[in-house]
């Protein structure tokens, strides 16, 4: 799995509360991703068994709203996501904000 920026953001959102079920628009807002990026990524994660999806049971109190599809990390997904994020953090310590390069003019 190649950890791209958008993927990293999605995994962080999922890991913020691994037990929460998130629907698509919710994830889009939380990860600040457009739908054209998010859904292919979810489909990929789903194919890899890292994310499960389930339909909201049609309850009586949604006042006419159609049932939504919810996504959640699987146990394996939580494990892989934590691993990947930890690895990304240790691989790229120099890209932390403010330390990437000296401020302009500071070298003189």
């Amino acid at each position, binding site marked *: 799995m190649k950890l791209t920026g958008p993927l990293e953001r999605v995994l962080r959102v999922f890991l913020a509360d691994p037990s929460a079920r998130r*629907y*698509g*628009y*919710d994830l*889009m*807002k939380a990860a600040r991703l*457009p*739908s*054209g*990026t*998010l*859904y*292919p990524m979810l*489909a990929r994660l789903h194919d890899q068994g890292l994310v499960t999806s389930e339909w909201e049971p049609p309850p009586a109190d949604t*006042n*006419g*709203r*159609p*049932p*939504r*599809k919810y996504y959640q990390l699987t146990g394996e997904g939580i494990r892989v996501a934590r691993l990947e994020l930890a690895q990304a953090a240790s691989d790229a310590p120099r890209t932390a904000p403010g330390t990437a390069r000296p401020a302009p003019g500071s070298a003189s």
Partner: protein
Amino acid sequence: MTALPRTQRLADHMIRRACRRLPGEAGDERYREWAAELPAILSDPDVGSGIGARMRRSARALGYAAGVSRCARRLGRAGGQPRPAASLQAQPGFPVRRVVVGVLIDVAVVALFIALSTAFRPPRPWLLIPVLPAAAGFAAFCLADLARARQVRYLPKWGWAIACLIQIPLGGIMYLAAGKVPAARPEPPAQP
């Protein structure tokens, strides 16, 4: 409850069309999933309130629909049936039919343009004699080139075709400058 029924219908329609590209069951499920998000977008409390909020919600919903359409195209390509080979391969021979249709559309557009411009200005019909064939010829050349191209950059082929037609000659120039993939150069001779 949704404040913007017309936007919702339009976005819903876009999503439905896109999901037709997916094989039966999957398309139906995707449609239900994506359409179910529209009410949440159109009544999103985080957007704010006031006159701008309606516009922002509409834009967001349509952007959402466009995004999932892109997603459906990708999933459709990945999941089985490949794109028709004809669109990927260069057209053998000269695409006569496309050129004829292109020229017809072209002439219609130019005629419309001239009709509009002469409606506001003293007509100068002699100007048509060189300009009309030149414009039609240039657009036909661009369309023929586009039709024979194996692939183009930045826009889909139909996008370039529209650009070539509605902005004569600017669209064609842009296509030739930016959209055209340069022909593969022959291998450079081996270094001695």
